[in-house]
């Protein structure tokens, strides 16, 4: 993966930069020792590593503002970081840039039940928000698998999803406001505690912008009352087609489950070997359907779903009888990644979304590609919203296997786009899918997005090298008229 060419002068001036930053963030808030920088070398996409110039851990908005303003004035690049759990390399450091770590912003500022929201600092973990309001009967709905570790600031940057987003939405659907700091140090408040803010929906724009537009310093999230009950069904099918058709039938029956997950045979086998959740090893596909709401509703809908599955030939059907059993049903799915990690030295998790009707075709093609690449693959799938997570199995110690895994992954994502889907459903573009953006967007589409970047960060200092396959200067983007993608930029470096 190529990153922007590091600026030798910046690297040579490390001591001076560190000295200046220590004046803004005193004490241990600036990390410059090479050995102490090691934990920051990569994020959840651990195949890629780079040592940052330094790490700055501010504690106040004023410090964030001053650090960014200083970096802008001195042309120093900044990579914002939450917990570093990104699966797309969103927090991958730059050798000539600082990491701006938001971990010390770890306070829940206010819980406001009257307006059903919580005001939190960006370094608060996703799960900590729900934990803080659980006793009062509330929770924060988006639940990425990494929720025990990932921070809400990172969730905003990546517009994180989770298994419940078919019914409850992604991060963007669960925010009311945030405070951001622009690269020039300007502090801006977006939204508030009401539903509609004045002016453009910049909150919606910043959400999912992968740390390229601004640094988030405070977030106001929506809280929901915790459903009275939840019930899960485990449904084993003799074919992927039958499982996929059942998903369609459930939605056609007017049921939007809280969770609707599918696992293919290799994923079932890995999970079962790891955790023994009681999954049917002979099934070609397994569905986990979660229903939540009042007891009466869950009971009625569970009956509906069961009947629909039977009609499609499900030969393994379990309905959770209590909370312990429901959690046991989920245990295998939630452990799918570590389970695959146990059967393979390394794995690479992809994240495309497809129209659900394309599932049998896409899975069939993935199995063919796996054969061609000589690599294993296990698939877990947010079946309700078409978000596919193929886990490509490889061994980085074998020469060329990482490259083959990457090429296989790229082929899967191209296939997702070709059947009408998209490159990423919830993990973000980052560096991982950056060079595939051209599969979905033409030059004009990308120029429009990059002009937005210029409106926030005209010097391109905030998280450069992510999301966009070509680095443009803002002046060029403003001047050049791109007509239907026909005008390329031959003089500009591509990664």
């Amino acid at each position, binding site marked *: 993966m190529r990153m922007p060419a590091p600026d030798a002068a910046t690297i040579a001036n490390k001591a001076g930069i560190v000295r200046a930053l220590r004046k803004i963030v005193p004490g241990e808030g600036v990390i410059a020792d090479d050995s102490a920088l090691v934990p920051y070398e990569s994020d959840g996409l651990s195949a890629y590593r780079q040592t940052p110039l330094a790490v700055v851990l501010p504690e106040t908005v004023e410090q964030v503002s001053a650090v960014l303003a200083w970096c802008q004035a001195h042309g120093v690049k900044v990579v914002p970081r939450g917990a570093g759990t990104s699966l797309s390399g969103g927090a991958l450091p730059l050798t000539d840039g600082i990491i701006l770590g938001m971990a010390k912003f770890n306070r829940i500022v206010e819980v406001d*039940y009257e307006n*059903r929201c919580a005001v939190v600092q960006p370094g608060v973990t996703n799960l900590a928000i729900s934990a803080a309001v659980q006793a009062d009967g509330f929770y924060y709905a988006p639940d990425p698998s990494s929720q025990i570790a990932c921070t809400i600031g990172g969730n905003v940057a990546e517009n994180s999803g989770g298994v419940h987003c078919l019914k409850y939405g992604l991060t963007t659907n669960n925010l009311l406001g945030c405070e951001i700091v622009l690269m020039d140090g300007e502090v801006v408040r977006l939204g508030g505690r009401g*539903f509609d803010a*004045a002016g453009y929906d910049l909150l919606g724009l910043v959400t999912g912008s992968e740390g390229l537009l601004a640094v988030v310093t405070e977030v106001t999230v929506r809280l929901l009352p915790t459903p009275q009950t939840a019930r899960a069904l485990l449904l084993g099918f003799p074919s992927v087609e039958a499982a996929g058709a059942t998903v369609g039938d459930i939605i056609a029956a007017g049921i939007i489950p809280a969770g609707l997950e599918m696992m293919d045979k290799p994923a079932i086998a890995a999970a079962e070997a790891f955790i023994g959740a009681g999954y049917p090893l002979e099934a070609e596909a397994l569905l986990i359907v979660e229903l939540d*709401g009042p007891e009466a509703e869950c009971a*009625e809908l569970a009956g509906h779903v069961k009947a629909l599955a039977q009609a499609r030939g499900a030969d393994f059907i379990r309905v959770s009888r209590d909370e312990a059993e429901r959690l046991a049903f989920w245990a295998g799915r939630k452990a799918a990644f570590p389970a695959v990690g146990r059967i393979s030295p390394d794995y690479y998790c992809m994240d495309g979304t497809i129209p659900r*009707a394309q599932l049998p075709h896409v899975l069939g093609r993935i199995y063919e590609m796996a054969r061609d690449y000589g690599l294993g693959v296990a698939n877990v799938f947010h079946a309700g919203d078409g978000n596919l997570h193929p886990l490509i199995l490889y061994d980085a110690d074998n020469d060329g296997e990482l490259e083959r895994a990457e090429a296989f992954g790229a082929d899967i994502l191209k296939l997702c786009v070709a059947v009408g889907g998209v490159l990423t459903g919830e993990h973000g573009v980052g560096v991982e899918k950056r060079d595939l953006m051209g599969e979905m967007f033409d030059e004009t589409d990308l*120029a429009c997005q990059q002009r*937005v970047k210029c409106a926030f960060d005209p010097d391109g200092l905030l998280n450069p090298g992510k999301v966009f396959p070509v680095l443009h200067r803002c002046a060029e983007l403003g001047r050049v008229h791109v007509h239907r993608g026909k005008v390329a930029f031959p003089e500009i470096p591509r990664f």
Partner: protein
Amino acid sequence: MLDVAPRLLTPTTPDEVLEAVAEAAAKRRRIEVVGGGTKRGVGRVDRPEVTLSLAGLDAVLDYAPEELVLTARPGARLKDIEKLVASEGQMLPFEPPRLAKLLGAKGEPTLGGVLAANLSGPRRVRAGAARDHLLGFAAVSGRGEVFKAGGKVVKNVTGYDLSKLMAGSWGTLAVLTEVTIKVLPKPKTEATLLIFGLEDRRAVQAMARALNAPVEVSAAAHLPLAVAGRAPLNAEMAVTALRLEGFEASIAARLDMLAQALRDFGRVDLLDGGLSRAFWGQIREVEAFHKDPRPLWRVSVPPASGWRIGEALAGEVIYDWGGGLVWALSEDAGAVRAAAHAASGHAQLWRGAAGVAAFEPLTGALAALTGRVKAAFDPEGILNPGRLGV
């Protein structure tokens, strides 16, 4: 400048839209972008030289009920889209209001218009806004460039979420030529719980209690006596209403839970399916204010502060979204804006002249950033100039 009527352009294809905008961009002509034209009275476009009507771009391009997505041209009429998805037992979850009668406008609201204005109905509290359902789009920017963003699947984080930016931009950034929206199954039935005689502040508390209960309240509105007493409701007391939607057995269980949660607020009553639907139709369309000649304001505030608007104005108001949306009749622009600010909200002028801008100008760093975003898409300021104050 001569005061002449703007030239009307009626493209029927995206290429014709491109041609029209590109020509205007080259000549720096100001364009007023219009769908059904029903919301033209909201905000003012500054001296338009071209009126670009999208009413002719009205095709539905793709509707895949099983994928929960629909792709159409922006000029598709809202009523046609809703009829189409209803035929598959689905709905637009954000319950878009028409508001044509409220605004005294002829014509039919379009899908593009309701998205461009980010208009959402009572279900906003539960299902989200129009902006939450715009999955992707194609458009022509003020530069005269065709571009697209987002996708045609319900879950997507590829690239910046420009759909959010387009929703609520009132046509000031780009001219939509294609939109993909998320649809959902329509609830099988609905019922509404009514509470009578609450003061505004107490009503807002009751709505918060209901919305905070795990019963999935899908709408929460309050009509003070001065409004509830008018047509079409003609009630003798203030009315607070809470809607539940879903499967029948579930509604029965949730009604019990809701009534229990609200037992401190006095006697409750029930509206069944048909009456419930009619009631929320009136709320959605702000029917009580259709015939009133006074300036009408749309005030957005944190829901718990909604009652403060009614108190400050001592006038007629309707509360929707649990108090988060307040429709207010008032001649006193200064009082409305001051009340909205005091409650950490903002007020838009939706009908009538009050001597102020319909959309209050932003200030400070947010205004500067907004100006740069506008310039990124429309550097010459040719699209709906002045409409949003940008």
